[in-house]
């Protein structure tokens, strides 16, 4: 005896959220952004240096002394390091390891912190607000890096800054500062300077804690959104697949219904009462409409699932394409006593023959359906600029101006259209719109209610036949 057991499948495990910072692409982009910003800093240093050099007298009268030589030296250092970072970053590609990209960023941060420490020392480390410029790097590192690495940036900043303060307090290297009186006021009050320095460092660590925690929360939320988005896309694709499969499966039962109707019409028609005949005609019509709707749903699904990338562009003989479509639709036109006037010349276009045939077939069939009995549908083509303008005109019921922007929407039908053509699937123009989107074609619709409609499709011109 054979047996089969259906066991529940293990549910997909979700990966733990990654809090290790931004991805490679973003980090590399930020590395370049850092460099661009550094050129601005270089320009500011150079300009402020010029100000200190040429307006020294004026600044002195306001109680300020700008260390212009120091600023120029720092600008020079930044130019050199920035060029190095630029060449280093340019050698990195998207496939480079994250370690290399992070090395570039770390070198930039550490060199910036060194330059910044010199600047802070020159400007005044404990009697101006310049030490708070370290916060820029601390904040940015919290955004770019995981918590531990951003803490390291904060610690390095604190070590550099405290070292500079200690060097000043101990008199190893006393900088004049930018305030003429400020330095003198503070130079003998070492405890106050220590209090200032420690307060600043305390603020940095609070800032690090807040920003790194928030950044981590944002990163986790981003990942949640990204995972949710992926799941939605997967679910949507699966749903579409299921709908298409189900729709496809409906083809066979409808073919069965239709064949039974045909049997009844061919073999038992004379034996049926007029009332029964009316009902059977209605079932036949309904089955035909549903069959056409199934066909349209499958065409639309196929167009969407293939997407733009899979479309093979080729040279299409437009006349041959239109001739084929018109041959297929002639019987339908004759049943409605609509005359088809085909004036498409021998011309070739760039497109996809299969999709162009579906597009033309839908437009011409629509024109037939919405023409009055005894009407005419004219199909023509002319070269306009670098494109072929294919026009399909009817003298049918026309479209209300307010309905025009909606006619390419799925299942959209005006009240008048639904009344005039009860068997419309509501998908014909959606298919036209989808193909136009795939082949990047422009469509212009001109219509006057009660007078008729012209669809103009602009297809890239290839040449004469």
């Amino acid at each position, binding site marked *: 005896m054979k047996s089969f057991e259906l066991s529940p499948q293990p549910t997909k495990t979700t990966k733990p959220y990654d809090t290790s910072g931004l991805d490679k692409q973003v980090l590399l982009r930020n590395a370049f952004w850092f460099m661009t910003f550094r050129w601005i800093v270089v320009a500011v240093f150079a300009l402020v240096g010029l100000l200190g050099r040429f307006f020294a007298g004026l600044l002195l009268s306001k109680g300020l002394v700008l260390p212009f030589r120091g600023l120029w030296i720092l600008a020079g250092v930044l130019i050199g390091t920035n060029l190095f970072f630029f060449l280093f970053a340019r050698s990195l590609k998207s496939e480079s390891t994250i370690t290399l990209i992070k090395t570039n960023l770390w070198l930039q941060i550490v060199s910036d912190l060194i330059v910044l420490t010199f600047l802070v020392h020159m400007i005044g480390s404990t009697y101006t607000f310049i030490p708070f410029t370290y916060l820029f790097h601390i904040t940015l590192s919290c955004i770019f890096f995981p918590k531990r690495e951003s803490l390291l940036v904060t610690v390095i900043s604190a070590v550099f800054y405290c070292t500079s303060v200690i060097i000043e307090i101990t008199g190893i290297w006393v900088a004049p500062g930018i305030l003429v009186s400020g330095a003198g006021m503070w130079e003998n009050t070492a405890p106050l300077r220590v209090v200032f320095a420690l307060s600043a460092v305390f603020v940095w660590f609070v800032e690090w804690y807040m920003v790194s925690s928030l950044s981590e929360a944002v990163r986790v939320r981003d990942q949640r959104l990204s995972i949710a988005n992926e799941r939605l896309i997967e679910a949507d694709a699966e749903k579409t697949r299921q709908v298409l499969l189900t729709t496809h499966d409906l083809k066979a039962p409808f073919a069965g219904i239709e064949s039974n109707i045909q049997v009844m019409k061919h073999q038992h028609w004379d034996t049926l009462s007029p009332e029964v005949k009316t*009902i059977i005609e*209605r079932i036949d019509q309904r089955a035909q409409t549903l069959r056409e709707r199934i066909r349209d749903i499958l065409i639309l699904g196929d167009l969407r699932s293939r997407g733009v990338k899979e479309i093979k562009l080729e040279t299409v003989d437009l006349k041959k394409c239109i001739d084929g479509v018109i041959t297929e639709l002639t019987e339908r036109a004759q049943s409605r006593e609509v005359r088809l006037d085909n004036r498409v010349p021998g011309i070739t276009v760039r497109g996809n023959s299969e999709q162009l045939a579906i597009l033309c077939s839908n437009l011409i069939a629509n024109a037939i359906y919405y023409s009055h009995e005894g009407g005419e549908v004219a199909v023509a083509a002319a070269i306009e600029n670098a494109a072929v303008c294919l026009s399909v005109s009817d003298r049918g019921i026309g479209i209300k101006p307010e309905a025009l922007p909606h006619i390419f929407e799925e299942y959209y*039908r005006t*009240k008048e259209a*639904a*009344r005039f053509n*009860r068997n419309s699937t509501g998908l014909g123009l959606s298919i036209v719109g989808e193909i136009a989107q795939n082949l990047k074609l422009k469509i212009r619709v001109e219509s006057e209610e009660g007078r008729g409609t012209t669809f103009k499709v602009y297809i890239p011109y290839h040449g004469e036949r």
Partner: protein
Amino acid sequence: MAKIMVIDDDLDLAEDLSLILKSAGHQTSTRDDTEGAVAILMEQKPDLLILDVMFPENPAGGFDLAREIRSTPELRDLPVILLTAINQEFPMDFSSNDIDPEWMPVQDFLEKPVAPDVLLQKVDELLSRN
């Protein structure tokens, strides 16, 4: 024999209903939209209305018309049966339990497709009540 109006944007379905109702001896008329329906109802004075809910211009057109009928003194007593496929379109589980003098002022709620016997039974019930 009663005069029954069917308002449904699917004219095929309206005509099918019409055939069923005619087979039971009723006189019927059909319309495919709710626009100007109140004026037509006042003019034709049917004994009962079978009304769809979703129309191309207004997905809740049937609800709106039912409310308009209740607020029109001449039509206040007209029995209305909602016959709809709204639950197939939107998973909202509408049923006769939702009938409400303000929100859904109708006498009965039926889902498409309806069996002819069920429809005729409901029609008879409502007509005999009036």
